[in-house]
């Protein structure tokens, strides 16, 4: 009966977050089919380690498992590809070293950012190094609090703040740049 209780509790606490899990995986892996596989794998892991869930706060706990599963998928894909790829591997240190100062434009061109179209927004968000992308996606799309993001990514809240902030700076720059390029191109 214990097994049945566990399943009922799992269905009540964890299954309702399937959309959140899929949404995060799709943004981290940037591939819908892979995201489905990763979420299925993550749920298997979640069920296996269900005892490690403390309290009823299942969402950050589950999203943490989804995140780790996605990164192991990416690592596996890289290893299968044989050589080290230039594609970022979920860290993005090459793109922006930790502690590097991403300059904050004095005039971030709010109008240009507001005018960016859907395709451009997706392109820029997908191009963001993974550690910034996950913070921005968890905040803006999943509506997570800083505390939840810290739990999902297993980093201190200070790190969440700096990643969000750098990620947004990069997005602002790429969105504004894309637009001005278009403007001069015609």
């Amino acid at each position, binding site marked *: 009966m214990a097994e049945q209780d566990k399943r*009922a509790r799992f269905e009540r606490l964890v299954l309702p977050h399937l959309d959140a899990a899929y949404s995060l995986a799709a943004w981290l892996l940037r591939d819908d089919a892979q995201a489905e596989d990763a979420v*299925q794998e993550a749920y*298997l892991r979640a069920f296996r380690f269900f005892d490690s869930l403390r309290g009823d706060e299942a969402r950050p706990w589950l999203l943490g498992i989804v995140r780790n599963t996605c990164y192991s998928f990416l690592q596996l894909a890289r290893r299968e590809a044989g050589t080290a790829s230039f594609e970022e591997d979920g860290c993005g240190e090459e793109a922006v070293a930790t502690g590097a100062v991403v300059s*904050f434009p004095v005039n*971030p061109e709010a109008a240009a950012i507001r005018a960016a179209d859907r395709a451009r927004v997706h392109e820029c968000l997908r191009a963001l190094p993974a550690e910034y992308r996950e913070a921005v996606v968890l905040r*803006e799309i999943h509506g997570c*609090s800083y505390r939840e993001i810290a739990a999902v990514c297993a980093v201190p809240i200070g790190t969440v703040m700096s990643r969000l*902030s750098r990620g947004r700076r990069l997005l602002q720059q790429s969105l504004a740049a894309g637009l001005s390029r278009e403007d001069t191109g015609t």
Partner: protein
Amino acid sequence: MKCPEAIRLLDAYVDDELDVTGVLALDDHLRACPRCRAREEGLRALRSTLQRHTEFRVAPASLRSRVSADTQSTAIPGRRRWALGAAAVGALGLVAVMGWNAGTNQTIPVSKRKVIYHLSDSRTASAALRTLGNHLQASPTTKVVVVAHNEGVDFLLRGARDESGQLFETAVQRFKQRGVEFRVCTNTLVRRKIEATGIVPEATLVPSGIEEIERLQQAEGYSYLRM
């Protein structure tokens, strides 16, 4: 406060994650510093652009079936199949179509739940939005319609701020993105001489708030929560 400190706190400020002391100090700085105001505007522009063009992805039905089938089968002791693939869905997948609780009891499937949040008092808006956040966290697929009438419409006025000085509209935008609808009673607006343009664009107008609540309950099967 100097600019570097303001820049460091600006994201948390826009995210409503700053404590009251920080908010007050940053408010003062922003009043005095046009460059940091431009930075704040840039951040808000980014947020509204992201919210307009990205959305929460809904899991495909096939994935729902796969995950549900796994849970059903892995729960049988001694027959755990961790690496179950899509092929294994088969008969077990059928269970999933009926919702997560199928097979155990007759609870309404999560996605069919519909709730009205009725606001008629301006003082309860913050608490109501907090409750709504917790509600959606526990049950992300529940459909919520917030119906505001009398003083309950105050938080949907343009520029309305909560007790800590944060724009209500920021929270309203976030909820709207998650599928929550905000409906405002036109009778109230007429009686209180509020122009329709004074209402945030995220909200829609209905002729009568009370009639809307009655209609949602009778015709669409919503349950009712008084906030």
